[in-house]
């Protein structure tokens, strides 16, 4: 052993120190995973570039000549692309926000029941059913929402307007009535809520299940009730997960096309009332409705609207990240 040998001869249980096989596999795997990771950037950049390039003619048309050729923009009514975009952004954000206001508390409740309250067998079954709910195609939600849910909800809307009409969101039309068909923004919000509940529930459930036993026991050992334990240990631990899940849900709600398209009786206005028909529309549903008959200029204008939706989702995600990172010192990650 005292004699000097070449490194390739030195063996530990027969393997030369310069063995290549392991390192080659390592390099290949690194290459593959790095390529997959950069693919994300490439796709994102490609989409952003596409949106910008295609929307450019519509965005930079200051003279109005260009947009005059787009059928659904009617300068005689004083509407420009920017104005229409304003209505649509308002409608999109309003309908999605209301959907989240309905879906988030429900989802947290369901997730908490599955993770901390239900007996194990019931919890497993329920978790499975929630996942199934996510598998239903949005066009089916649209059909069901339009044919079953909306007629069922209409009398409730009238009741809501009668009793809570003073609240701007539930204000009826001037004659005190609400839409007789029920195809209003609130219906779209409710169906969207049902669609995002499985997403928010699945993510928050996983986060709740990961609450450290140590912290749950710390709370219980001080004489906390189950609910106090949840507030003390589970919610703080899952806070960033809840925010993340909600933003995932919001992402889905903002971009959802088919269900809204099939349920909502559309219109363009800045109306806060969720119970009046022909007052709202969303960007995605608007694009879907106009696209089949759009000419070249029309397509460019629609893509400009798509760009607006892209920017909104980007902002929502940045906001979510900021919320999550704001109190990272207290997050339990350290």
């Amino acid at each position, binding site marked *: 052993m005292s004699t000097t040998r070449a490194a390739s001869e030195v063996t530990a249980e027969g393997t030369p120190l310069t063995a290549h096989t392991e390192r080659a596999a390592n390099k290949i795997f690194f290459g593959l995973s790095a390529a997959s990771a950069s693919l994300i950037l490439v796709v994102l950049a490609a989409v952003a570039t596409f949106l910008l390039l295609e929307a450019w003619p519509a965005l930079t048309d200051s003279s109005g000549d260009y947009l005059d050729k787009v059928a659904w923009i009617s300068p005689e009514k004083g509407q420009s692309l920017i104005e229409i975009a304003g209505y649509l952004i308002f409608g999109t954000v309003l309908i999605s926000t209301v959907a989240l206001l309905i879906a988030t508390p429900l989802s947290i409740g369901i997730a908490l029941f599955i993770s901390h309250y239900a007996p194990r067998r019931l919890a497993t079954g329920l978790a499975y059913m929630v996942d199934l709910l996510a598998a239903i195609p949005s066009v089916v939600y649209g059909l069901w929402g339009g044919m079953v849910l909306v007629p069922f909800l209409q009398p409730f809307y009238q009741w809501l307007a009668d009793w809570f009409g003073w609240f701007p969101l539930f204000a009826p039309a001037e004659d005190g009535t609400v839409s007789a068909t029920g195809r209003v923004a609130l219906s779209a919000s409710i169906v969207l809520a049902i669609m995002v509940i499985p997403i928010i529930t699945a993510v928050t459930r996983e986060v709740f299940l990961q609450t450290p036993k140590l912290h749950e026991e710390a709370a219980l050992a*001080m004489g906390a009730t189950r609910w106090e334990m949840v507030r003390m240990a589970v919610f*703080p631990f899952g806070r960033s997960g809840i925010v993340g899940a909600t933003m995932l849900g919001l992402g889905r709600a903002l971009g959802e096309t088919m269900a809204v398209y099939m349920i909502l009786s559309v219109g363009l206005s800045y109306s806060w009332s969720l119970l009046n028909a022909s007052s709202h529309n969303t960007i995605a549903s608007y694009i879907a409705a106009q696209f089949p008959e759009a000419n070249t200029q029309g397509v460019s204008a629609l893509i400009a609207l798509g760009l607006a939706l892209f920017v909104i989702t980007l902002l929502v995600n940045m906001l979510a990240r900021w919320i999550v990172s704001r109190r990272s010192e*207290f997050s339990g990650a350290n």
Partner: protein
Amino acid sequence: MTKRIDVNNLNVYYSNFLAVEDVSLAIEPKSVTAFIGPSGCGKSTFLRTLNRMHEVIPGARVEGEVLMDGVNLYEAGVDPVAVRRHVGMVFQRPNPFPTMSIAENVLAGVKLNNKRISRADADDLVESSLRGANLWEEVKDRLDKPGSSLSGGQQQRLCIARAIAIKPDILLMDEPCSALDPISTLAIEDLMQELKDEYTIVIVTHNMQQAARVSDRTAFFNIAGTGKPGKLIEMNDTATMFSTPSEKATEDYISGRFG
């Protein structure tokens, strides 16, 4: 404030598995009682039956009775939540709430069950509890920093401060030093000697020297083999246990011949 515990013929089950069999013992007030024994002998399981924390595990149940000053903790109508306010607990690994500051951690138990506390009272309680846990001097300038910013030993003393802030009668400690370095361990052991003037302390430890150092009475638990229930072999004054134990198994264990 302090109370005595009498355990009579206690069996602990996990579903149908008998984990601890037929334990009867008495824990004196204002003293430190140590449970020692090899891993898996049921000493931690038994400790958790003293504040009904074993019920956190689905299927866990007991037979027999645990009397706290004559009141059976397992009587129908006794609320485990109320039991745990009288019998505090410190765990193996320090577990301050990471989302709370040091001061909020101390007050966490006090604010439970819809209790309100004035700002001045809260400040006093934070100081007295942290002083009681020998932590005040180290953290008084950073009470609003997260509890997880402290060292392991400091975190464990923070957990003790949190436990004594609700003024329990009895303090259970489940291997409180096993995750700590020797200096921090010494700090906790010194603290136990001070705390026993006011509280009844029960400690589970793997460390026989620690049991010999801190406890007044020692109980030795053992297990006949895997899958067999843990049993109480012997309980006596610590000095007697470590000099002239009456059971052969105890002598073998404390002299290091097994376990």
